[in-house]
């Protein structure tokens, strides 16, 4: 197979890579670019651990080809914190103990950030529906939902 040359932007930085035509964006991020924050839970769109944004839309990077990212703006979990400064969602996840093993956490954070960018004051129901494509086998979800609602509350006050 001949590899495809892709020029894209990841977390604001221009990035170029070669990938196989049938390689997913998730595999490119993890195996070629060393961005291992995005996780593979299922590889079939069911768990959301691989969540990224592409041109501002939340998607599963396991259900997108690396080749499709050409010319796009990709946002991953690595773009959340600014240096040592955690994103408010990250701080609230720690405060609320909204993670245990942590495998689902990057996906939840990317998805929650995308929600708050569209809806700065979501109801609990809206948070639960928005995050329905993110699975967590440890926390029971409640702490995650509280952390997201609390972040929205604080950001509004700020």
């Amino acid at each position, binding site marked *: 197979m001949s590899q495809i040359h892709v020029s894209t932007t990841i977390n604001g930085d221009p990035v170029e890579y070669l990938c196989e035509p*049938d390689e997913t964006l998730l595999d490119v991020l993890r195996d070629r670019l060393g961005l291992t924050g995005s996780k593979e839970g299922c590889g079939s769109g069911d768990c959301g651990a691989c969540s990224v944004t592409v041109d501002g839309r939340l998607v599963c990077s396991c259900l997108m080809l690396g080749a499709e990212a050409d010319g796009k703006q990709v946002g991953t979990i690595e773009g959340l914190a600014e240096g040592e400064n955690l994103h408010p969602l990250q701080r609230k996840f720690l405060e609320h103990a909204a993670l245990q093993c942590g495998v689902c956490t990057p996906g939840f954070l990317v998805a929650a950030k995308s929600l708050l960018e569209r809806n700065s004051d979501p109801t609990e129901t809206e948070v639960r529906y928005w995050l329905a*494509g993110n699975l967590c086998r440890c926390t029971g979800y409640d702490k995650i939902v509280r952390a997201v609602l609390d972040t929205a509350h604080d950001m509004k006050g700020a």
Partner: protein
Amino acid sequence: MRYEAPDTIDQAVQMLAEADGLTRVLAGGTDVIVQLRSGMVEPDLMVDIKRIEAMHAITAEGGGFRVGAAVSGAQLGEHEGVKALWPGVVEAVELIGSTQVQGRATMAGNLCNASPAADSVPALVVAEAVASIVGPEGRRDVPVDEITTGPGKTTLAKGEIVESILLPARPANSGDAYLRFIPRTEMDIAVVGAGISLTLNDDGTCAAARVALGAVAEVVLLVEPAADALIGSRLDEAALDALAAAASAACRPIDDKRGTIEFRTKVAGVLARRAAVIAQTRARG
């Protein structure tokens, strides 16, 4: 596998038509990439249609809307005009998958993947939506209920691509609705789906109706006796009972882990009934 992302539909058609071996159109990829990764399909060529600018457009046409084949569920759900005219179609598309899946999944992909349980298809069938198809022989417009012939099977010829789906204009006092049953509230495949579109006369009686059921046969069923049960009535109990009975009578479902034949048959009637009442409420405005 070769991956191509042409800028025009003519190039895309030519690539698909000239290719040897197995080809696949790539729209949102939420079916085809799953199939690719699991080895269910091994295409020699995949043609991504998302670089074709016109395919991302939703345009007003003759009182209805033409929805490009690359429009995602999320994009459709943000369109106030389509939501106001065909709320049942939009709610059906929005039931597909999670927020992440909505970011990519298309209505045309849902149709062309040809699953009997595809959520948007009953809603499109009752809307009398028309697929505009471009292929090596030119363009043809085909009602959506003539696209699928069985699980994974369509009437699209080699090289043909659905370019857009037209949701037509509709008379005043019309409404549509789609309901599905799944064992949880999100992220599952329909056990039964029911789409209804109807138009009311000024006196509130039903002037016209269409009823379609998903996941109860090898293709989505347009059930005329169920529509006949509504036409002329005010959707009183007797008419709704007749609708439910006709819907159940049309079912020829499979037995599987999601639902037994008996369960699906019963639920089809229940959902048709509930969807009819929602469509009626919407038609009254």
